[in-house]
């Protein structure tokens, strides 16, 4: 665990997420998929923790479990001192202002029927119902500016934007509620290399400016090394190695980590 002078913001303890395999006419459980198998880690305030693994490693499931889009089978997730994974959905609602998520697929993560203003403004409508329409428009324009888009894009529709721009909109949506912690679920995997660089830089700038804490989930090791302070390597639902970014790349301990590193195409 890294020594840092900030307190832990998110703490995952013995998290298990098992998905039942249903079979038969009455769909009885005939087995289970251990997507996340006894995982524990901590994320300190202001840090970026990278979660690296291949498909099926369980990294996406952890992200979904933190934000309660999936329910854990066992174990606890603490935010600050509160065990948020055990809260009822209605009690969890205020935490949706603190913990947000950015999705991987820029082409399907925005509702094609809504304008950008409506997409980003929805978060404001839900959590700040007292805001008038004009106030919301102002705030959304502010957010667009923060992520590098222009104010006159407010009334446009998602299909008018490129992949990188849509990811920026997704980031603006996550920022609308003033979160502290953002789960970045492979935010650059579907983008071109140069656009990846732009988005990664943007995320770093925002972290500095707003004091955000990130859980950065990805399968691209080079990007993870670049942005993370601390890296967790996952394989088949378990964490196989946890170390600082430098340590992982200079001195990988686990066999799987070494295999991952050697597989990265080098220039």
């Amino acid at each position, binding site marked *: 665990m890294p020594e840092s002078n900030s307190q832990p913001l998110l703490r995952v303890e013995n998290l298990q997420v098992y998905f039942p395999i249903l079979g038969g006419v009455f769909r009885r459980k005939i087995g289970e998929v251990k997507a996340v198998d006894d995982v524990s880690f901590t994320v300190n305030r202001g840090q970026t923790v990278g979660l690296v693994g291949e498909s099926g490693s369980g990294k996406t499931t952890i992200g979904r479990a933190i*934000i309660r*889009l999936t329910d854990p089978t066992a174990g606890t997730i603490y935010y600050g001192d509160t065990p948020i994974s055990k809260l009822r959905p209605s009690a969890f*609602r205020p935490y*949706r*202002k603190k913990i*947000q*998520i950015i*999705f*991987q*697929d820029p*082409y*399907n*993560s*925005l*509702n*094609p*029927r*809504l304008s950008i203003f409506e997409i980003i403004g*929805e*978060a404001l409508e*839900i*959590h700040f119902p007292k805001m008038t329409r004009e106030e919301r428009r102002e705030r959304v324009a502010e957010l667009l500016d923060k992520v590098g888009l222009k104010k006159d*894009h407010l009334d*446009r*529709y998602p*299909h*008018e*934007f*490129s992949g990188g*721009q849509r990811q920026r909109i*997704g980031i603006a*949506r996550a920022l*609308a*509620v003033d979160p502290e912690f953002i789960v970045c679920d492979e935010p650059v995997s579907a983008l071109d290399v140069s656009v990846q660089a732009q988005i990664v830089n943007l995320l770093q700038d925002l972290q500095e400016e707003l004091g955000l804490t990130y859980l950065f989930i990805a399968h691209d090791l080079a990007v993870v090394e670049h942005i993370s302070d601390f890296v967790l390597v996952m394989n088949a639902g378990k964490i196989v190695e946890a170390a600082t970014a430098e340590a992982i790349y200079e001195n990988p301990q686990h066999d799987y980590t070494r295999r991952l590193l050697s597989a990265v195409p080098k220039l």
Partner: protein
Amino acid sequence: MNPASANHQTYAQRLWRHFRADKFAHYGLGIVIALFIIAALAPFLANSHAIVRVADGRITFPVLLSLEPIEWRFLIYVLLAALIYFFRRKLQTHPRRFLLLTCFFVALVELWLGFSHPINDPSNDRERPSSFKLMPPVAYSPIETTPDQFSPPMWKHPCGTDSTGRDIAARMLHGARISLSIGFVSQSIALLVGITLGGLAGYYRGWLDIGVSRFVEIIECFPSLLLILVVINFTGSQNNMFCIMAVIGLTSWTGVARLVRGEFLRLSGQPFTLAAQAIGASDFRVILRHLLPNALGPILVVATFGVASAILIESSLSFLGFGMQAPTPSWGDILSESRRYIDFAWWLAFFPGLAMLVTIMSYNFVGEGLRDAVDPRLRIK
């Protein structure tokens, strides 16, 4: 990379563009709209009363005086809806004021309708002397009998007359109202039930989905036309338009339900739905604002075909004698009568048959045009 402003259109606008490119759908829509207008204006198109009549120095409007309250309501509210639609931008800026105005207006209308009585004058204005009169294009009422029985199509009766001398053209025009209103209302009922059940099943899954799916399968086991016949017979509601609408609607919702369930199942797995849930949107909000608008395309397609099918069912019912019967003008009823006289009165079968052919084909073209427009072509990279 700047977004091309040529691309700045809503989903509806793009749908419209694709739709218009399809010639058949385009003309089909024209016919559908024309039929709608004909149905709306039927009293002005075929009536034994004059539209305007000047006699003894007074101007009267006999057609207007003979309109039933429901016809008034239809004309006024559709006009109101059209006005609201065209001025919606301006109205959005002062919603409260506009709402007040509308309520006031509606109150006035209802008050007036409550106090007015239509004049049921069975006599006709054709022979009445007057210094000026403007008759509707077809100067006969659909229920007015004349001594000209079995008259073949001629100038006076463009579509001929039937066994009691009623003008077929008038009956056709007024019959359009019956067909269209039954088609639309029954389909609306079907949509309401289908979207609700299918939507709940597709969104909540689990036991709700299992229950609704089994229920749908049970309903589909019944052959719908027979079921409708049985219900109508049992409740003795022949010739009762509202009953027929309800029964057709309540037996044809299963296709919509299946479709909506499938669409919701697909859409609720998409990241934008998860994102809305992650933001903290309530289920209600997710369904109404995110899922339903995206499922609307295929729903519209099914609804269009459903209207065509409902019109056909209504005509079949009337043909069999279980639907609307004489003297109420219904295309199916005219066809039914033609069975006996077809060997010499061909016009009794030709015109209602032609009308139904054109109507159903137009709706089908529109439906197919919509289906092509809604296709993944619109799913942009």
